[in-house]
């Protein structure tokens, strides 16, 4: 079930090198088997892109990584620590909320519809979590936020409110907001799908830049061009399963599975 590239990295790397280890993960919504034995390992600094048809469980998988959804079976760990649980002996115990929140704060997430806080200015959006969770003082948070917003090209929009920004600008603020918590891992759920075509580029540029700095990234996307250029691994999911994964250019040009081929021909046409 796991792709060759993953199997390969498994032998080449040690435990501590992995940012994400998902093993035989299952998730049900009622009788719907949304994640069906998903296994995926992501090395530190690796960029993984996930593609797949609508309803295949991509968003659910991302939400399970930071425990916004709970997995029903299997193991999921981030940076060597189980997500949402501690292990004592052979038993799993749910993490107390405080520890869970700390775990989540170390994982940044960017959503399809940006989900900026509309009642706060750009600067307030970026400063909220670091200040509230006492990672930084107000002054430090503000300085860091200004620097981050400069990095995503929005130094002149600090006082603007989200409605006053274009979709592309909003998504770049959302990326800065997630980065403000200095996460070890960034999750992107179709970050450019809600954008007008001419605005997609500016967001992808920011993401490429982020990948270059060595950030570990898991990106659900239909931007095949981005995937083949930036990703180290491309994963194709369908009906809750990882159908195929490996080097992006290989998966795109020579897919092994029929379902991958069908999907790619639809996306690329």
């Amino acid at each position, binding site marked *: 079930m796991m792709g060759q590239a993953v199997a390969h990295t498994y032998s080449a790397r040690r435990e501590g090198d992995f940012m994400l280890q998902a093993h035989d993960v299952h998730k049900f919504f009622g009788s719907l088997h949304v994640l069906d034995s998903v296994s995926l390992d992501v090395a530190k600094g690796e960029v993984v892109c996930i593609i797949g048809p609508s309803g295949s469980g991509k968003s659910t998988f991302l939400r399970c990584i930071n425990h*916004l959804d709970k997995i029903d079976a299997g193991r999921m760990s981030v940076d060597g620590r189980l997500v949402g649980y501690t292990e004592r002996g052979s038993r799993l115990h749910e993490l107390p909320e405080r520890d869970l*929140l*700390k775990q989540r704060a170390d994982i940044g997430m960017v959503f399809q519809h940006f*989900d900026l806080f509309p009642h706060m200015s750009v600067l307030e959006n970026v400063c909220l979590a670091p200040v509230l969770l006492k990672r930084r003082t107000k002054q430090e948070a503000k300085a860091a936020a200004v620097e981050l917003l400069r990095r995503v090209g929005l130094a002149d929009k600090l006082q603007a409110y989200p409605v006053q920004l274009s979709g592309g600008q909003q998504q770049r603020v959302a990326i800065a907001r*997630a980065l403000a*918590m200095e996460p070890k891992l960034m999750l992107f759920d179709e970050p450019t799908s809600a954008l007008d075509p001419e605005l997609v580029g500016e967001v992808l540029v920011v993401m490429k830049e982020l990948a270059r700095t060595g950030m570990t990234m898991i990106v659900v996307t239909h931007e095949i061009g981005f995937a083949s250029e930036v990703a180290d691994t491309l994963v194709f999911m369908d009906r809750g399963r990882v159908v195929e994964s490996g080097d992006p250019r290989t998966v795109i040009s020579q897919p092994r599975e029929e379902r991958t081929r069908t999907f790619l021909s639809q996306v690329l046409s």
Partner: protein
Amino acid sequence: MVVSAALAVGLVTTLITNPRYEWGTVNEYLFAPDILRGLRMTIILTVVSMLIGIALGIVLAVIRLSPSKLASGLAGAYIGFFRGTPVLVQLIFWFNFSALYPKVVIGIPFGPEFFLVNINLLITPFVAATLTLGLNEGAYMAEIVRSGILSVPEGQTYAASSLGLSRLQTLRKVVLPQAMRVIVPPTGNEVIGMLKTTSIVSIIALSELLYSAQSIYTRTYETIPLLIVVSIWYLLATSVLTFGQQYLERRFGRGTTRTAPVARFQMLRNAWGMTRREAGVQ
């Protein structure tokens, strides 16, 4: 159009010419110390009851929306009970609560008694009134707050959670401020409703505005003029509240329009101009 104009003219004419309105008496009592004391009590009752109602409403709404079926059900039962019984009945009930439990003993059963609370002394008319109005209001506010919370898109909660905010932090910093836009207008109506509903506590002889007027006109038989005095004060108070409501609506509308948010003072001036313009059109 012509008919209503004629009616209006007729009404105004009788208001002025019918001597039984006794405008002189109205004028005499408008600022009478007893009336002003009554007005003060009405305002205190309104403020205290609304504060209880709003606080209770937020707590109930959050419990109602909690994943626990039991907690949610209990909050639902509370809301159903208080919305399903007349507030007047509740008032008389609380006023007579001491008949049900004359004393409450706090201590260990069959062991030493630590406190003995005399309910008769504890539940004064003021306590009975604020308890009734506050608990009852809580049920209505709960529904208003709940619809406000539900109006905030789920993505906001996901985004806040993904940043590591707790449920409570998410509620306070992200969900409630946005819910305000939906909560404020009906809450304004609730405050105005509450101001008028406080008049029912006159039946337990609490000297709010209406009771103060009643005490006077049972002596002097100047019923109509005193009711006019009362109405003038209620009208004035509700007008002030309406103005405050418009100010708050603008304040919590922040981030919903593309125009830059204006400074508070500016907003206040705009709100004032707006009400005058609206009044002018009607």
